[in-house]
């Protein structure tokens, strides 16, 4: 089960205006680095991790302002395991990959789906969570299922640029009317108004946004296949050259998975089938 990319990561590095001074400085620093014979990859003892808040239940703030969520807890546990000091840096989704490239932070742990387009820009850790996608419809819906025949001429809501968007566009673009929204909250609002007949979202988000009051239900199976749409799950993103740092996190993740810490955190936020555990709700 996987989610999609939530919103599209802005590709490409940032456009930076460089002054002559800066360029000279870069060149001389580069020269110094080469002279010292040290490769560029640094040894990190403090790692800054970029995160886009809120995205319940993956990352959010508690009413008292504390960071919480599956990403946050797992990230902290990974850092402890790898004996690194970690700071969280808040960054909006659209600028999160450029932020990594421009060294505002050293890693991204923000429910980022691993896919080929992003692999060209960043280096991913092993997947740490594979959440499913699901169909959500009003409890009173007349629809019998989620086949093409059921969805004919229906209004389907998706979050623009997500894996769910790609999947629905390719599979049902000819038969149904697909409405694309900037955020999952907008999808939820238009489910409420009745403009949408059904929504296709990643399960944790859809559950947090729609399943609370009993007015909505899931339709069909939770989906993680086919892989070409739903990808490989969430990964932590690093700059391409920080291979050693990614390796540290992979080792820590393997350790946490074998010693039970991972399951402990997972059970706190998710039920066995990948649905949100009740205490993880807002």
């Amino acid at each position, binding site marked *: 089960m996987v989610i999609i990319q939530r*919103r599209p990561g802005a*590709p490409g590095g940032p456009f930076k205006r460089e002054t002559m001074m800066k360029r000279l400085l870069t060149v001389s620093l580069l020269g110094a680095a080469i002279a010292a014979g040290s490769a560029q990859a640094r040894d990190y003892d403090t790692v800054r991790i970029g995160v886009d808040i809120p995205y319940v239940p993956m990352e959010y703030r508690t009413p008292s302002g504390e960071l919480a969520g599956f990403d946050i807890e797992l990230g902290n546990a990974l850092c402890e395991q790898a004996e690194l000091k970690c700071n969280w840096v808040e960054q909006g989704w659209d600028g999160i990959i450029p932020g990594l490239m421009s060294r505002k932070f050293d890693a991204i742990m923000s429910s980022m789906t691993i896919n080929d387009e992003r692999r060209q820009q960043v280096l991913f850790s092993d997947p740490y969570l594979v959440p499913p996608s699901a169909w959500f419809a009003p409890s009173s819906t007349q629809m019998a299922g989620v086949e093409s025949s059921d969805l004919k001429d229906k209004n389907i809501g998706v979050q*623009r640029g997500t894996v769910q*968007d790609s999947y629905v566009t390719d599979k049902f673009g000819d038969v149904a009317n697909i*409405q694309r929204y900037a955020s999952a909250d907008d999808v939820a609002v*238009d489910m409420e*108004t*009745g403009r949408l007949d059904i929504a296709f979202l990643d399960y944790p988000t859809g559950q947090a946004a729609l399943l609370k009051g009993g007015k909505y239900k899931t339709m069909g199976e939770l989906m993680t296949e086919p892989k070409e749409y739903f990808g490989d799950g969430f990964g932590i993103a690093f700059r391409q050259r920080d291979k050693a740092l990614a390796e540290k996190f992979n080792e820590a993740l393997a350790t946490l998975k074998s010693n039970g810490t991972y399951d402990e955190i997972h059970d706190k936020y998710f039920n066995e089938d990948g649905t949100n555990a009740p205490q993880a709700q807002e």
Partner: protein
Amino acid sequence: MQELLQSLAPWLNDNAIFTPSTLAQYWEGFVNTVQLVFISLVLGLFLAVPLAIGRASPIRAISKSIWLFTWVFRGTPLLIQLYIAYYGLAFIPGARESILWPLIKDPLYPALLAFTLNTAAYTTEIFYGAIKAMPRGELEAARAYGMSPMMAYRRIILPSALRRALPAYGNEVIFMLHASAIASVVTIADLTGVAYNIYARFYAPFSAFIFVAVCYMVLSFSIQGLFRLLEKRMLAHLQPR
């Protein structure tokens, strides 16, 4: 259109982004943008003429209430007005049971409502300015001929004021075209919305957005050309000789 796009296919050289199917989406976005902007401008224009006359009215109740309308719509961002029209209207109690619901449900009509009222507000002020700037002599001449205010408006003030407002109104039309780029936030697949979809799909911001930028430029220059022609015809008496 489909055949035309298919016939383009060999020219595209298997380009990853510009395929007949994405070009068809762009075409749809182009049609949606032109339709949205054109309809709201026409409706806005028809609203603005009587509103501008009312705004110049000596009766304070009329002129002040129209001033309030333009003040509100010019004083708030169009994006906010669009949000209120699209999300807000749907939450008025009873809206979903009313006979208007099929209109509110479709994103096109709330967007038309917001765009029309917005452009009507700006156009009202443009026309009002032109009416205020009428040379006094012409008004006095009209009165001296015994014209009633109605007739003076019909024969003297409006023909002259609307002509002189033409260049400023041409700007408003182009601003409206560019402002329509926000329509995609309420799920309308306009040019910008389509570009955003294609960018999100292929991670190719330059190709996706530069292509629509060119589309907007073509539209802007066409509008500019049209207004230049109009001005040449209708403002011939003001041209330097």
